[in-house]
């Protein structure tokens, strides 16, 4: 935006920079970029106070495409840069853009610690379950059996769940979205932006080149309604055609299970009411097996906790500090 223009109402397009967007045609990143721009427009974010900080990877190119401040840093370390930024200027609205490799492989440590410290920022984790930019190697979220240039006979490792890891790191906001359900993603991002603390949003994103259709089993239009559950705080966990199915906890509390209300209406009593503050249920929601259960989308968990940056606000006031006095503290002598 030019320096003199002041549009009364910013539109999503006003958040687009002049740089050509350079992802593969058909990449899920485009839809997410649009959702981000729309979220900023919905909240009328001020471009001058918004900073997108990213690591390295396809997803991490996003800051170049925003008409805000942007910092494309190094692989895996975006949360550390964001921390420096926020403790220096807590007023800035900081968005961390990262991929599954960036945040959970090389950047795993910073991911844990930024959540633990509850820095007031948003983390959008574009999870395509693969390393896109480096041409398709398996990532920590790749499923066991994934065939890639480094796992020719199928990966033997177990994938990590971003949401589960975030919860154990002390996250105060954990949500999930998907590139094919932008209508639901925008309000989730909006809530993330408003949350005071670190907001983690894991976004399933299709990499058309190296991991095409990996989320098809729940994003395909024909199955979406049966395979996705959109969570709402205080509402029963219902999904499926006519909300005919619900989620309940199993008898030994080890997992969630589906109850079919169309077979027996009375099962409704077993259906859990989504309590956004319940960490146990949040764990179970983020652990659900995609092959047998729906995928939980929306805000899984949210609590309030002091933020790291709030501690720095008071300390950033003035340069009239009493350095001179401190230098003279302790033993001195005069000659």
């Amino acid at each position, binding site marked *: *935006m*030019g*320096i*003199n223009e002041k549009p009364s109402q910013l539109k999503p397009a006003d958040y687009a*920079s002049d*740089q050509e967007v350079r992802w593969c045609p058909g990449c899920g990143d485009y839809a997410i970029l649009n959702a981000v721009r729309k979220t900023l427009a919905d909240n009328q974010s001020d*471009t*001058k*106070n*918004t*900073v997108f900080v990213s690591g*390295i990877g396809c997803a991490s190119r996003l*800051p*170049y495409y*925003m*008409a*805000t*401040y*942007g*910092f*494309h*840093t*190094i692989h895996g*370390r975006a*949360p*550390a*840069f*964001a*921390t*420096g*930024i*926020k*403790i*220096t*200027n807590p*007023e*800035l609205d900081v968005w961390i853009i990262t991929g599954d490799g960036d945040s959970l492989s090389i950047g795993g*440590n*910073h991911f*844990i*610690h930024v959540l633990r410290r509850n820095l007031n920022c948003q983390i959008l984790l574009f999870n395509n379950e693969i390393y896109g930019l480096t041409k398709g190697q398996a990532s920590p979220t790749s499923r066991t059996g994934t065939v890639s240039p480094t796992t020719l006979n199928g990966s033997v490792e177990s994938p990590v769940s971003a949401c589960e890891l975030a919860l154990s790191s002390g996250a105060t906001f954990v949500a999930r979205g998907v590139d094919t359900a932008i209508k639901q993603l925008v309000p989730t991002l909006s809530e993330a932006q408003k949350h005071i603390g670190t907001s983690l949003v894991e976004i399933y994103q299709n990499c058309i080149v190296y991991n095409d259709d990996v989320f098809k089993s729940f994003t395909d239009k024909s199955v979406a309604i049966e395979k996705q559950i959109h969570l709402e705080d205080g509402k029963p966990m219902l999904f499926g055609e006519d909300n005919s199915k619900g989620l309940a906890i199993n008898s030994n509390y080890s997992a969630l299970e589906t109850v079919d209300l169309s077979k027996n209406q009375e099962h409704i009593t077993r259906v859990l009411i989504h309590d956004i503050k319940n960490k146990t249920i949040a764990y179970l929601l983020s652990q659900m097996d995609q092959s047998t259960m729906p995928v939980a989308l929306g805000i899984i968990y949210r609590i309030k906790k002091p933020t790291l940056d709030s501690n*720095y606000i008071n*300390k*950033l*006031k*003035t*340069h009239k*500090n*009493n*350095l*001179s006095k*401190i*230098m*003279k503290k*302790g*033993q*001195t*002598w*005069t*000659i």
Partner: protein
Amino acid sequence: MDGSPSKINNNIEEDWSTTVRFAGDSGDGMQLTGGRLTFEAAITGMGLATFPDYPAEIRAPAGTTYGVSSFQVRFGEGLIASSGDHADILVAMNPAALKVNIKEVIPGGLIIIDSSSFSDRGIKKAGYKDNPLENNSLAGLQLISADISHLTLEAIKEFGLGKKDGLRCRNMWALGLILWLFSKSTKETIKWLENKFGKDNVLTKANVAALNAGHHHAEITEISEDILRKVIPNVKPVPGKWRAITGAESLAFGLATGANKAKLNMTLCSYPITPASPIMHYLANYELEGINIYQAEDEIAACCAAIGVSYAGGLGVTSSSGPGISLKAEAIGLAVSIELPLIIINSQRAGPSTGLPTRAEQSDLMQAVYGRHGEAPLVVLAPKSPSHCFEIAQKAILIAIKYMTPVMILSDAYLTNASEPWLIPNLSKIKEFPVSFGKTQENFMPFERDSNTLARKWVIPGTKGMEHRIGGLEKDSLTGNISYDPENHAKITALRYQKIQNVKKELNDIIITGPKKGEILIIGWGSTNGPISEAQNTLSKNGMKIAHIQLSCLWPLTENLKTIASQFKHVVVVEMNNGQLVNLLKVDITPNAKSITQVSGKPFRVLDLIAKFTAIKQLGK
């Protein structure tokens, strides 16, 4: 290490100085005792230098050699730049302390021991086969053997401290004795004790009693003439308010001062590591407004956070030692590429890998200059003494913000802990250099440069209409947008190089001590300043045409060094590594420079340097 100390000593006329070393268990309070004697010397206005030496273990079992903690202080008239090659007086609180330190005592020196610690058990624990007091191993030394433990407990028995607590006062007993040796009263120390514990506290009373008991004991002890003549004279240096300062404190003060003068908030982002942590501890302790610390999860995060601080318009500082500095390499490269101010402090320790964490070395110079992938130049500065740290920290900040560049400060384990008297500066007299952030303007180009410095503008988030993107991919030399253009890459690489070369303009401070022309020019850097200065001083007095430069900017190297060096028959580079600065200087500046190195984790000894310089003069090698 040829030339026995005493021999050389006799040939050279020196100003009076004396060196005292306190040694005991970590729990014996030797650092504190040494600090007190330092203060007593300082208030008389003497020159002085200290060398604290800690055990590597947190708390080794009592009585073992690896648990010995020592503190050496040297003071005297004239230039006292090094903490002394050898001790004139050694206070050894137990056999282990004697064993570890005996070789540091000069022939004819004085040893003071607590005889009660020389039990069979104590002697064995120290690894002695038999009693060193009895087997002639102290031949040629003077010995004061007193049952310090017993005498201390006697002196304080009225205060009802337990034996364990009571024995903690032994150090004050020893200090009392030493003060007497230097004809000092116990007055100042009593004041200090009262201040520390409160006047009526039983600890104050017990310590004072022990102190006085030691002092009185000295009176009745027979001590050689040679030692008694070491009365501390009163020398008057620059008038003003003085204090003792360590390198770590001085760096902390310098950073805070620089940030204030630049009118910037500052955050030191760091991860604990020996010997760098004290800088973070001091800054935390000062609790200055606008000056913060952030303890990150590791050194990489610390460096990245510091860059984030600068990105957002604060002054980002990160501080570490070898292993941590190695980890920061990638992030430092980004800071070079995006051209933001950043201060990196390396408190160098000895050895590759974990090495010797508590010992000093200067072996990270090449890493500072070259230790990143790609052509990634930055500025490298090195303070030469504890008080100089204060200046260097400010200079680093000035350069970092004026040239929009990372600046690395090379300190070391020795500078960190050593202290020296420091005239507390009048801060209001130090010039301000407030940063002017880029303001809202038309046609803003993030990588447009100041034609003089070649620095780009510092435009921070929050500035209206100036939204822009930066990153580590190669960027257009004006717009900063990603550019794969080969010519642009060549161009911006050259610009980054030239910008750092331009920092030479700031370096009008090559100070040469001694003649401008002559036999030997010694070039050193960092904490070797003390021993080099003294060696040079001694040799000049003996008629050698010897000059000395202690370089404080190691990158870029100033070209006039070449002209200066050409006036000397020999150029000798002295450093605590395998020869790093000398290799930098051999390139286009002094191709024939000679090299004197030492990689033992210990400071140079003045006498060794004197011998080596003499050999170079005489034999050309």
